[in-house]
């Protein structure tokens, strides 16, 4: 056990590193065959909010022969002290060095955590390049949506687990245990041959092992041997696994500090900018009875006073009315609030929120995404002016005084008129609010730039040039001012970096390595983010961050992530992109008929 008593009195928020939380699982190190550290490469409060890691922690620790512990990226003050004293990054449960584990599972979902992922490996005492790690080191696995374009991070990971992680992670651990068991008896601390492990792992559906591929002249990965797939198909669960009903309860307030039940995975609305809507197909629902039982167990096991019903679009969940009726009639009087994140923009959603007597202290948030009907049709948002006004009307009529509206700029075909429609909508919403709430009305408009992510229909579309994003933000800011109105925007610089990393091929890995070496950390944190340093890192590798972000792909060319298959056909995405440019809507396939996206064939149903 690493002694951290000398460190914690000297750092901010020391409870981040102390462990000892309720429901943390402490297993006997020597009683299991395979040990996994689950790592979120951001600070504790962010990592502890991640439901995906809670699910995996629960599943692995249910297995008698495995253990899972947690680790997060230390904040700068802690990092400095650890480096000064030669203390490696450790797990919260057993306080062992991460280098002692068999497998490190790093959640890779946000590009802005990529430098932290490298820093985590380095702090654990591992070479950051997979090629420099031999059998003494743990096998480093990436999970999460970042794996859908693995190339930017490919040199740093031994393996990418792509798709739903539940079965896949257990498959990997079983494989590891089997290979280890084949070694000397009783040698439970021995290492397996990573070459052998990786070769076997590459045969599992959803696994990408970069070292088993070479790059062809055009820079695309090609299998080096038989049995290694040319195209890696993401793993998809037929049915959602059990909810974690005894999650670790943090002492330090997490960003999402509440009980969470995933009511449904996947979304069929078909918004054309949305990556998650493609990655998590098909829709898989949890039965209402199970949701209610999970909620009850969660509250009893954690003591949380807030419950969140999670999905990409909870109002589309078929059991939503049953669940909200029951919870709404019981939970408020027990002082437990229930929240529905990602509300749809319509009065039905407001009705649900009302049934839950949800407090939504900061007001209800809707995401119309675009100001004009034409542009909302381009992105296939499926929301009309009447939907927006109806939703807002219902919110203020129910006694809320604040509404937050989220918009995106830099959408394909966008013109100044579309931007001016955002301004008009802001005033229109304020007027509606004033009829109910008078001068207490607060309308917050928040704007971010489109980041065209891999596998979404807009993947071919280059990001709007940086200078134009800034110009448009200022245009909106000038338009949206006055009593009852507030305007805020996401920093365009971080959006540029996200696009440049998300849309690039293997070459950008050298940029990431260089940026990390030059001191980039916690890029998602405004006060830590250093755009200049990133721009320099691109330049030093002979690239341009803006060119990378703004690159327009042709529909015919091969994309850097084409070797990863979500099960959705590229033809379908291309057709959606073409339709978007003509402002043609596509229906929600749950109600409007099958659009032949490919999921039905690739997974035999949806």
């Amino acid at each position: 056990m690493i002694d951290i008593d000398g460190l914690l009195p000297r750092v901010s928020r020391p409870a981040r590193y102390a462990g000892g939380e309720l429901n943390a699982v402490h297993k006997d190190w020597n009683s299991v065959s395979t040990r996994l550290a689950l790592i979120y490469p951001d600070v504790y409060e962010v990592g502890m909010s991640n439901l995906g890691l809670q699910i995996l922690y629960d599943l692995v620790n249910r297995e008698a022969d495995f253990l899972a512990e947690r680790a997060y990226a230390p904040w700068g003050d802690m990092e400095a002290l650890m480096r000064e004293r030669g203390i490696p990054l450790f797990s919260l449960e057993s306080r062992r060095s991460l280098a002692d584990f068999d497998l490190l599972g790093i959640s890779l979902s946000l590009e802005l955590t990529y430098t932290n992922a490298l820093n985590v490996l380095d702090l654990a005492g591992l070479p950051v390049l997979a090629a420099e790690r031999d059998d003494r080191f743990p096998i480093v696995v990436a999970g999460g949506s970042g794996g859908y374009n693995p190339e930017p991070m490919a040199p740093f990971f031994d393996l990418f687990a792509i798709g739903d992680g539940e079965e896949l992670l257990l498959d990997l651990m079983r494989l590891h245990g089997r290979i280890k068991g084949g070694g000397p008896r009783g040698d439970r601390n021995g290492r397996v041959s990573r070459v052998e492990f990786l070769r076997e792992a590459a045969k599992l559906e959803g696994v990408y092992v970069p070292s088993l591929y070479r790059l062809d002249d055009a820079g695309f990965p090609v299998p080096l041997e038989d049995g290694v797939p040319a195209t890696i198909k993401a793993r998809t669960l037929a049915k959602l696994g059990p909810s974690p009903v005894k999650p670790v309860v943090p002492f330090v307030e997490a960003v999402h500090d509440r009980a969470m039940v995933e009511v449904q995975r996947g979304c069929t609305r078909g918004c054309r900018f949305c990556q998650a809507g493609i990655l998590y197909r098909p829709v898989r629902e949890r039965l209402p009875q199970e949701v209610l039982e999970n909620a009850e167990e969660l509250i009893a096991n954690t003591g949380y006073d807030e419950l969140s019903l999670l999905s990409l679009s909870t109002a589309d969940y078929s059991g939503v009315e049953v669940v909200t009726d029951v919870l709404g009639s019981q939970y408020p009087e027990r002082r437990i609030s229930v929240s529905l994140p990602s509300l749809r923009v319509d009065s039905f959603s407001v009705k649900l929120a009302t049934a839950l007597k949800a407090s939504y202290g900061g007001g209800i948030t809707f995401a119309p995404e675009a100001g004009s009907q034409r542009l909302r049709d381009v992105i296939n948002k499926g929301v009309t002016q009447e939907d927006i006004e109806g939703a807002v009307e219902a919110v203020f009529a129910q006694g809320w005084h604040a509404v937050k509206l989220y918009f995106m700029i830099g959408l394909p075909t966008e013109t100044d008129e579309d931007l001016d429609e955002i301004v008009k909508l802001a005033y229109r919403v304020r007027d509606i609010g004033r009829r109910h709430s008078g001068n207490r009305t607060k309308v917050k408009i928040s704007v971010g730039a489109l980041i065209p992510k891999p596998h979404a229909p807009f993947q071919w579309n280059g990001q709007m040039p940086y200078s134009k994003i800034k110009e448009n933000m200022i245009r909106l800011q000038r338009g949206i001012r006055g009593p009852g109105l507030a305007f805020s925007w996401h920093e365009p610089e971080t959006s540029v970096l996200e696009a440049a990393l998300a849309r690039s091929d293997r070459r950008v890995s050298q940029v990431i390595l260089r940026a990390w070496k030059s001191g980039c950390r916690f890029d998602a944190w405004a006060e830590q983010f250093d755009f200049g340093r990133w721009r320099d890192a691109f330049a030093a590798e002979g690239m341009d961050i803006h060119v990378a972000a703004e690159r327009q792909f042709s529909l015919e060319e091969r994309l850097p992530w084409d070797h990863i298959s979500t099960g959705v056909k590229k033809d379908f995405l291309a057709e959606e992109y073409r339709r978007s440019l003509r402002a043609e809507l596509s229906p929600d396939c749950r109600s409007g008929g099958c659009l032949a996206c490919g999921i039905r064939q690739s997974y035999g149903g949806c």
Partner: protein
Amino acid sequence: MGQRLRVIFSRGEETKYLSHLELMRMWERVFRRAGWRLAYSHGFNPHPHFSFAAPLPVGVAGEAEMMELLLDEVREPAEASQQLSGHVPPGVGVVGIQEIPEAAPTMQRQLVAAEYRVACPASASLDRLRVEAARMMEAATLPRQRVREGKTRSYDLRPMLRYLEILNGTENGAVARMELRIDADGAGRPDEVLRELGIDPADCRITRTRLLMKE
């Protein structure tokens, strides 16, 4: 029917780094898990009526801390203590529960002093600490300066120090025992006593062993 209860609790190594706010949130969750019916304040943002005798500084363990709460029900103290023990996280212990008359003065008004035990670093010599402790106890004043939020404040530590002794520790370092005054003007700080002794509080293991009430 309501009730005012005082919970005596400990916090150990795993939980000593919690801030006061984090500790309060922890207790709210403990009571919800235990199924207790807390009395809540009225108003827009209702909260339970918790009060703590004296907040513990971050990094300081406690053996007999005190908190009081108001219930919307009545519980038998011994039974309540045992039941609550089943719902606290690993680093927290329920030492006991007492029923307090609702009209009794607040704990803050009854509190007079706190006792601490400090495991000093092995590098600090026992003899030198004894000399320093004797000097401090004999001094008429111990002028010190404290920097808080960028402002330096001068004050006298001596009146806050009721006693200080240095013992031979069971581990490899010396042990300091001290009793520090608490009154309306503030509480004596163990880290300040340690600095006056010439050791860095961050190198010590500090435990508050007892809170002393007026009687």
